[in-house]
């Protein structure tokens, strides 16, 4: 059910914008040129920024909807309520996710949903890669007890 909605949203994004709904690309593209000296070879046109911003606003509105609809921490367990990792763990994880998603040209949505749907070889390899390192990391953290909350 939730998965079907994700697929629907990815399809709708392609339909309305002609672009793939890769979250890291959408966010990363908006960050382009924010710091001096980081302007891309040919900066994304203003239109590109506008639909990305509209998508992000939708994403946050969806979050508010979930917050209203869920009783208590229903949809945000682990954020509200008992955390899964320490703050240090979350901070390190954030850097790795942000950097890795940009270097890898996509995240769970861009590679895992859009790319796998297209049977893109690059995305299949990327998805397999981040699944494997994710599984290995969870196993390592479980074994060592690092970053416990």
């Amino acid at each position, binding site marked *: *059910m939730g998965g079907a*909605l994700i697929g629907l949203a990815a399809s709708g994004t392609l339909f309305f914008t002609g672009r793939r709904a890769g979250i890291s690309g959408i966010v990363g593209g908006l960050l382009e040129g924010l710091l001096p000296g980081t302007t891309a070879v040919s900066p994304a046109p203003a239109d590109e920024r506008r*639909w990305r911003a509209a998508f992000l606003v939708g994403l946050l509105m969806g979050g508010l909807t979930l917050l209203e609809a869920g009783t208590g921490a229903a949809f945000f367990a682990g954020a509200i309520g008992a955390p899964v990792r320490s703050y240090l763990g979350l901070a390190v994880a*954030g850097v790795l996710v942000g950097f890795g998603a940009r270097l*890898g040209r996509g995240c769970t949505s861009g590679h895992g949903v859009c790319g796998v749907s297209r049977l893109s070889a690059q995305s299949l390899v990327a998805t397999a890669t981040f699944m494997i390192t994710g599984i290995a990391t969870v196993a390592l953290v479980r074994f060592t007890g690092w970053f416990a909350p």
Partner: protein
Amino acid sequence: MTMTMTRRTLLGAFGCGLIFAIGLGVSGMTQPGKVVGFLDLFGGSWDPSLGLVMAAAVAVHASFLRWMRRGPSFAAPEIDSCAALTDDELAGISPRARNGFLGTRGGVMAGAAIFGVGWGLGGYCPGPALVSLVSLAPGVLLFTATMLGGMLIYQVLLHPRAASPGGPELTARPTTRPKLAR
């Protein structure tokens, strides 16, 4: 997207973001404990449900792509069906024009490997982290802030950019986006 952006496009993008967020929430992707449970193959309590979520998302989107390829009258702007993920196309440069391994499969694999470590460690990937911002939970705010920081680090260190004076010129060329044929 060179044509003037219509209100329809913006509303569509907004609606898709909304649906995307609700899909992530309903499926459990915004709960890091559930994500970690999905990746916890060796913990004795593997929770495969997010695998089904991904399969459902792929099934729906793949069907949509099939349907779109079939309809010759489809009128969305500049659909690209076959290229690798988009940055280098958007920037209008060939991957070969870039230095190092960034344009190659090695860069994608290295990035995906790093991403996976962070995903397993934090239990969040970018979409769910952004959706969860509304919870205002300190952990989510922290994760999202450092995630944006990680993206900026990439941008400063590695992202292809306009050539600096005296530096090697990157050859820009107009992209021709393949139309959805067949």
